[in-house]
């Protein structure tokens, strides 16, 4: 009896069966170079035996050191209870958008609204999980040129985003931890 029939018997609908079969095909086709797998598998013993693993790792891949540095913040961002940027949700009204995120145990939700005549955006409300918000919590926006705008959260009440329409990345930093890969959003 084929898998599709077995799943169907088990109560799965056709769409679910198709998704499973498609992903099985995908995984079956994802044959990795065995040498690559062996090298990754050797990472743990190597790390235990070689305190200078990082130096060795640099020789293994161009940006491995960055990856290890980043992993520390990813471990924080991905696994501790709160400090993961939850994503950017646009409000139904295209003249407002909301950002939810956090770092270092501080969770932030804030909302911007469009200023008239294309003058940019301004903050209209913010909720933080800590009160007062510790100093040093910053919010950054990065535009497509890589230019950064930073603002202390304490100053956010006065902070006018003044961002022209476009795509940005934003991140929240606190306690030396910056949210990992920047979250991207498009200002509507």
């Amino acid at each position, binding site marked *: *009896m*084929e*898998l599709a029939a077995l*799943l169907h018997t*088990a*109560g*799965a609908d056709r769409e*679910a069966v198709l*998704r*499973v079969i*498609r*992903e*099985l*095909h*995908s*995984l*079956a*086709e*994802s*044959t*990795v170079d065995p040498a*690559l797998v062996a090298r*990754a*598998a*050797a*990472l*743990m*013993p190597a*790390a*235990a035996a070689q305190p200078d693993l990082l130096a060795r*790792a640099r020789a*293994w*891949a*161009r*940006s*491995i050191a*960055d*990856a*290890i540095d*980043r*992993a*520390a913040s*990813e*471990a924080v961002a*991905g*696994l501790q209870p709160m400090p*993961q*940027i939850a*994503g*950017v949700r646009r409000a139904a009204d295209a003249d407002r958008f909301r950002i939810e995120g956090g770092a270092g145990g501080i969770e932030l939700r804030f909302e911007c609204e469009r200023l008239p005549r294309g003058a940019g955006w301004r903050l209209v409300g913010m909720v933080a999980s800590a009160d007062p918000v510790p100093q040093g919590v910053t919010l950054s926006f990065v535009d*497509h*040129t890589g230019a950064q705008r930073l603002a202390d959260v304490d100053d956010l009440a006065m902070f006018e985003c003044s961002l022209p329409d476009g*795509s940005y990345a934003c991140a929240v930093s606190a306690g030396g931890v910056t949210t*990992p*890969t*920047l*979250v*991207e*959003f*498009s200002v509507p």
Partner: protein
Amino acid sequence: MQCVCSPRGYLLVEVSLRSVAMRPPMPEPDPAEPRLDLISRAISGDRDAWQELVQRYSALVWSVIRKGGLSRERGEDVFQEVFAAALTGLRGVSDPARFDGWLLTIARRLVWREWEARRRAGEPLPEELRGGDGTPDTLSEAQETRLLVQRALNEVSSRCRQLLLATFAQGPPPNYDKLARTLGVPRGSMGPTRARCLEHLARALKSLGIGAKH
């Protein structure tokens, strides 16, 4: 080359194949040692468990990288970065049940980072990397299904996993003679073995809620 063509060479090959075919079947994994136990052992520093994890999740990570549109060369770098990042952060995993989702998120973020440079040049993000709201922190339905399928594959034996993946690969049908030797099962039992493996997989998928909205 001469050796291969000599009678002795053939004999050696034959003996070698026979020894492979006659070796005892690979043991089934201990059912009391499911995926979560493996992950827990890896977190506690068990090297064998880590190696097994890498083996099991390499296809999942590689599929994310390739579907993210990276070249093979860059993809191989990212593949290694993913596991280096995972190893570094492993001890921070407090809930083993979240491990594979966490690993997939690391892979997607690293692929996402590669696309940052291209995005600045005006290239759109591949559909595969977009979650429900266009950020790397949410998984699409396809990605959630992939995780579920990977979990189900991890619930069946290593032999079943190999057999099923060979069966589901696109292209010409697998070489069952070669597969039987690799898996250490008689050629004649491949059909029934495959049927049993499909049943195991279907049970695992059902226990994970396939068919339910996930």
